[in-house]
């Protein structure tokens, strides 16, 4: 072939180049800034499954439901140690078994219906009846018996547990116990038993008395809120809120470019050097607690992890400071399983200290003979942005320096949870997020209790821990704190769980304020201004 096609070749090449340049150029002109000052954009990494409070029990779900629904009681700002009235005021009975709720002024649903005692009773019974994720909130955690919920007058109702339960007022602020508009929901398939079919409706239209209404909802990309005109509280500063599903790295650039005014999921690496001008970084310690478990079941433990001295060796071998370095400044090592913010938390414990000499001697006396232990961890979950893989590798390296052979076993959290819940994993890393800010949420980390059993820690083991646990549950009033401390000390001395880390969390804002970190619902969108 000669000249002729060559010319055409040159021509087509030019055309291709032009096409590329055109597409390249148009790429630049995309993002424009919103002119509306009324819209608040919040970046969050979604774990959203539903916005139906009786079914939601994820972090994003709590943010959403907090904005849409009011609860009987609530917490003020970050302070989760003192329940305060919202829809109702409360009194506890002397035996701590019954809480009496009394309507607190006038609240109105977005439909215009007033909030009545019947709505609260119905909403609570619905949580119990449809047996969704949060239904345990209204159940006795030891016996599995649902609380008795009764309307006692047009303005009062009672919730009664079978045993003394001082945590009752701490449970009720949970956004999963948001109060729904019974009359509206009953028209859309809402019931208080398993036949309930209102979830679809709630994922399109909210039915609450909270500051916002649902404007649009997509569980994988974004949730948009608009003002609830019937809300009786202080009108929020922003008329429209967009909660956007964005990964960490993009959250950073979003805030920098003021594409988002609030970012909730940046980790320490990402926030370093970010603070400047209108960009503010609020740092606080997460109440999610990362822990290590060692299975006590003889047949799962490989004869290693159930040796008390081996457990001790592990506790001393771990370099807790390294973990904190990985997690970034602001992270802490909790003394026990109760997070540092809550009543009864331990500042530190002599059993959980880095001491390589002690680790070596404990290992020697445990009879460890070089067996490899398998350390499982979730690959697709983080402890507030800290990768479990990093933590696991750090722990592995610590243990290997102490002379323990460790094989890592990263699993998708679904697979991990399944085996963990069946008590089949020898050792591993997991975390616990608070269901309600009371130490009684944590007694599950005891022999024979739910979490204890996952680590093969059965009722007949560690009687000292069981005794301390029972004392803690039974304790009333001011005695509770020290009773829970004692329980954790016992568990640290002879237990299957090693509390490792509470990571630092960051809320990064650009030009807004009023975002108050909260351990239960992360942030109340209505207070941002």
């Amino acid at each position: 072939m000669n000249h002729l096609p060559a010319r055409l070749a040159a021509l087509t090449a030019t055309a291709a180049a032009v096409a590329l340049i055109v597409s390249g150029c148009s790429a630049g002109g995309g993002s424009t800034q919103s002119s509306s000052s009324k819209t608040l954009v919040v970046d969050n990494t979604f774990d959203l499954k539903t916005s139906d409070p009786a079914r939601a029990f994820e972090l994003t779900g709590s943010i959403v439901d907090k904005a849409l629904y009011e609860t009987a009681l609530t917490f003020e700002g970050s302070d989760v140690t003192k329940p305060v009235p919202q829809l109702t005021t409360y009194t506890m009975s002397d035996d701590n078994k019954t809480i009496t709720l009394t309507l607190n002024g006038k609240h109105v649903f977005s439909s215009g219906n007033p909030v009545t005692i019947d709505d609260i009773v119905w909403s609570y019974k619905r949580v119990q009846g449809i047996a969704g994720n949060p239904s345990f909130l209204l159940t006795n955690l030891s016996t599995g018996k649902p609380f008795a919920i009764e309307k006692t007058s047009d303005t009062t109702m009672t919730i009664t547990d079978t045993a003394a339960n001082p945590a009752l007022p701490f449970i009720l602020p949970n956004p999963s116990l948001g109060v729904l508009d019974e009359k509206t929901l009953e028209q859309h398939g809402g019931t208080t038993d398993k036949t309930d079919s209102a979830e679809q409706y709630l994922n399109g239209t909210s039915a609450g008395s909270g500051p916002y209404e649902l404007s649009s909802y997509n569980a994988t990309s974004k949730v948009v809120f608009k003002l609830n005109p019937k809300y009786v509280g202080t009108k929020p500063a922003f008329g429209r809120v967009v909660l956007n599903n964005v990964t960490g790295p993009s959250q950073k650039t979003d805030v920098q470019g003021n594409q988002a005014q609030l970012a909730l999921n940046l980790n320490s690496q990402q926030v370093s050097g970010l603070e400047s001008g209108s960009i503010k970084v609020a740092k606080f310690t997460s109440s999610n607690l990362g822990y290590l478990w060692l299975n006590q079941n003889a047949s799962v433990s490989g004869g290693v992890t159930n040796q008390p001295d081996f457990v001790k060796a592990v506790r001393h071998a771990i370099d807790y400071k390294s973990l904190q370095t990985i997690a970034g400044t602001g992270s802490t090592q909790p003394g026990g399983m109760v997070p540092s913010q809550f009543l009864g938390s331990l500042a530190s414990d002599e059993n959980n200290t880095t001491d390589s000499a002690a680790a070596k001697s404990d290992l020697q006396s445990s009879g460890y003979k070089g067996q490899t232990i398998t350390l499982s961890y979730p690959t697709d979950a983080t402890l507030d942005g800290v990768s479990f893989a990093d933590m696991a590798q750090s722990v592995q390296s610590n243990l290997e320096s102490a002379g323990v052979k460790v094989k890592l076993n990263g699993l998708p959290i679904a697979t991990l949870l399944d085996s963990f819940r069946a008590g089949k994993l020898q050792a591993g890393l997991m975390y616990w997020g608070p269901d309600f800010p009371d130490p009684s949420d944590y007694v599950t980390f005891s022999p024979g209790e739910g979490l204890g059993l996952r680590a093969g820690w059965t009722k007949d083991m560690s009687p000292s821990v069981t005794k301390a646990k029972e004392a803690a549950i039974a304790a009333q009033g001011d005695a509770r704190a020290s009773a829970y401390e004692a329980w954790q000390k016992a568990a640290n001395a002879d237990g299957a769980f090693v509390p490792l880390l509470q990571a630092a969390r960051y809320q990064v804002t650009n030009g807004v304020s009023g975002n108050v970190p909260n351990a239960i619902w992360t942030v109340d969108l209505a207070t941002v201004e």
Partner: protein
Amino acid sequence: MTAVQLPRRRALRVPVAWRRPAAIAGSVVLLAWVLVALLDPLLGLQDPLQQSVGDAFRAPSAAHPFGTDALGRDVLSRTLWGVRSSLPLAVALVAGSLVVGSVLGAVAGYLGGAVDEVIMRIADLVFAFPTIILAMVVAAALGPSLLNAVVALLVVSWPNYARVMRSLVLGARGQEYVVAGRLLGAGPFTSLRRDVLPNVSAPMLVLAMLDFGNQILLLAGLSFLGLGAVPPTPEWGSMVADGVTQFSSWWLATFPGLAIFSVVVAFNLIGDSLRDALDPRTAGAVQGSSI
């Protein structure tokens, strides 16, 4: 339709292929990686597993030419050790799919009939899935580990070999010498082994060579998704994944990514040259591979 003319016992024209600059470049890169894999312990690198959390996320410097990762490990040494995960497993994977696919394809092509139908319909079924989605389900079912990722990819990669093998066998089956062999009393498998396989081995080898790059990419892709390599093993795909969440530390993803790229390019250059050296008509059959 005329059958593809296959000269009897045609050897792969390897010397011809090796004279091409592309093949030389590819071989040099590949050889360098093989040497690195063999000599890793002697290169005076830092321990790829040695953590130093205080030195996390250090940018490239004289001490750490490729920087350090989240646990303060040396990215250079992890990248160079990473070849030990990728190369041997890719070889195992390609060899595995070559053997499984060839056997099934040969059986299907040679026996025909119901056996052919069943094997090829299963191949169709596997083809109907994008490789990585099926591999993802298999890997998730088996649990993450590099070996399971290899198994998962084996499940999805044999049909390509089976198809090509089947068409080559079909082409060769009609050749006079094969027919003559059958007439002289050679059983189906004897004839397959003696008369057919030697003639299809060259294109199959080229196919395997061209497939190497793909398989390395897929293997790394599964690791990237967290369904392959298990930490702390240095592996390129998972190293890139580490870099995804840490954009300010660009070196985390860049260097292992370049490593994958260099190996895949090397294999593709060699594979291309081999294919070009092969009879262009049979080479056509060899082209149909997909990620």
